[in-house]
């Protein structure tokens, strides 16, 4: 439930309760007062009649009955009765006072009546008035409350939206809106300090990763060129072997470095430019480049694609496809089959092979390899996943009856 709704609802509830209580109280008090008034009126009438009887005449007053009885005097008795109203053609409620008094030695039972106020109508009227009052009060109150609260809470909601969009990898630190309310201002200060700190730490970390990768490239270039130079001299077979091993180490390091750099850049959202491109073309292009790799290992490559145009980063799409194809070449046994199928909503790569015993989540982790292979860096699929994330795509892996399947859903 939204905060505004909650406060408004509480207000509504409170108003309704108070109004109901006020209505009931008003009713009871009114009823008491009116009752007392009628009782007094009846008593007065009774006294007047008693006086008249005492004066020797038997009054004939409407709605009053006087009877001579044998029993002695009784206490006052109030009661209700229905009297037929000839004008309105209905029974109306009346209140009566019955009392036996001894006047001039005679016992007279006198009953005086007075029309009751129509309580039902009374109730209805009061109820209606209160209902209208309550409704307008509640409505007006709710609207005022809602509007006021909304303007008071506005900086809060605006900042909430800013916070929702906050990412440590954003190019600028977060800037929140100022507010005149002290609590909000405190919250803003705390939040800004917190996010600024994490933003700063993240950007220094990514700067470090990028710099470290860059700085490593130059010494690697030196080692490689020196090893190349060394191998220009006539060397013994044993020496040659050492040089070759050293070279392959350098090559692996430099590949890993490049992959890490690419990952760092993907983390940094460095690839923001997107172009309209034909993914089918890219797929065929990359497959064409790797054709020989497939032929040599006697792997059948089946490609099928629909013409799909989409907005994506060209370079990243090339890397994505080439990584998946390279992965397929790497892990498909000789004589196997690799298939790539591109449709409007997904790109599916399948290849035959033994199960690898890794689930989807593990497979895309950095430095995770199917077999502890010496050659692969274990970063290829991590890069694939990261590229998908950048484009808002989903990548999944599954293994079924001899087929490894990678599905990218756009």
């Amino acid at each position, binding site marked *: 439930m939204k905060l505004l709704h909650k406060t408004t609802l509480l207000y509504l509830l409170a108003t309704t309760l108070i109004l109901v209580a006020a209505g009931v109280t008003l009713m009871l008090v009114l009823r008491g007062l009116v009752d007392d008034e009628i009782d007094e009126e009846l008593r007065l009438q009774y006294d007047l009649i008693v006086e008249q009887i005492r004066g020797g005449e038997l009054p004939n007053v409407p709605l009053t009955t006087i009877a001579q009885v044998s029993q002695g005097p009784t206490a006052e008795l109030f009661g209700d009765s229905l009297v037929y109203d000839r004008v309105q053609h209905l029974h109306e409620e009346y209140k009566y006072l019955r009392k036996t008094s001894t006047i001039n030695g005679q016992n007279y039972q006198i009953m005086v009546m007075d029309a009751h106020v129509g309580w039902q109508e009374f109730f209805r009227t009061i109820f209606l008035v209160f209902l209208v009052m309550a409704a307008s009060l509640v409505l007006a109150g709710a609207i005022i409350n809602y509007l006021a609260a909304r303007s008071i809470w506005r900086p809060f909601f605006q900042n909430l939206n800013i916070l929702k969009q906050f990412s440590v990898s954003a190019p600028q630190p977060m800037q929140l809106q100022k507010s005149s309310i002290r609590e909000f201002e405190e919250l803003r200060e705390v939040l800004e300090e917190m996010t600024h700190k994490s933003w700063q730490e993240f950007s220094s970390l990514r700067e470090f990763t990028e710099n470290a990768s*860059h*700085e490593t*490239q*130059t010494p*690697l*270039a*030196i*080692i*490689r*060129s*020196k090893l*190349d*130079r060394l*191998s*220009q001299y006539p060397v013994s*077979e044993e020496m*040659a*072997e050492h*040089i*070759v091993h050293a*070279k*392959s180490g*350098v*090559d*692996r390091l*430099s*590949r890993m470095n*490049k992959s890490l*750099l*690419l990952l760092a850049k993907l983390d940094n959202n460095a*690839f923001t430019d997107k172009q309209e491109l034909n993914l089918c073309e890219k797929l065929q292009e990359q497959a064409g*480049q*790797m054709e*020989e*790799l497939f032929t*040599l290992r006697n792997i059948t490559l089946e490609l099928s694609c629909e013409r799909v145009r989409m907005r994506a980063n060209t*370079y990243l799409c*090339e*890397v994505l496809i*080439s990584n998946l194809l*390279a992965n397929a070449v*790497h892990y498909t046994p000789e004589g196997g089959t690799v298939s790539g199928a591109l449709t409007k909503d997904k790109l599916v790569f399948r290849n035959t092979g033994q199960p690898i015993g890794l689930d989807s989540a593990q497979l895309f982790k950095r430095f995770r390899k199917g077999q502890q292979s*010496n*050659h*692969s*860096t274990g970063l290829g699929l991590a890069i694939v996943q990261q590229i998908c994330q950048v484009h808002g795509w989903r990548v999944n892996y599954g293994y079924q009856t001899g087929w490894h399947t990678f599905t990218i859903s756009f």
Partner: protein
Amino acid sequence: MKLLIVEDEPVLLEEVEHYLGQQGFLCESAPTYLLAEDKVSLYAYDVVVLDITLPDGNGLQLLRQLKNLHPETGVVIISAKNSLDDKLSGFGLGADDYLTKPFHMEELNARINALIRRRDFKGSAVLTFEELEVDTEAHEVSVAGEKLQLTKKEYELLLYFIINKNRLLSQRSIAEHLWGDDYDMADNYNFVYMHIKNLRRKLVSTAGTDYITTVYGMGYKWTAAS
């Protein structure tokens, strides 16, 4: 051919200078931005090999200056950054090629040679090696007038060999030249072997000479028939 090599790492600079010097280029070197700026304003070079990240300035700025003074000079950028932005702005400023560190000397040499061929021989760029003739425009190879039928990859391989003659080329250097360095080629060196085997067979059957020497485990070398 006069070359200027701008690179701040002395060991790498020496290495580039050494190899390109061996290949018959007249090399000058500049380890800093200021020195490079001086040289560029004083002399004209055929090709400038330019590192973008210099301790006292940006290589792209130097490129801008260079192109103002000598628009005909060819430029190969060598950078530790494999950055698309740098590449695009480099090409936008008139650079001809872009190599990412670490690179093979042979690759740099091949790029420089290709650049010079593109610039200097408009239409007919023919490389000769003994009785071999490589028409780099038509992508044709002939031995003593007789045409040699080569696949695209074999042609590229032959050209790479001739340009880097007398140099031991590692499998990796060849693989990267032919297929690029996007994939891990380590377990695919068989290709290099296959292509070299085919090229050799064709050369031997047409020219009667095997110019390629295998250096066990290390790579291959192209040398004149002794």
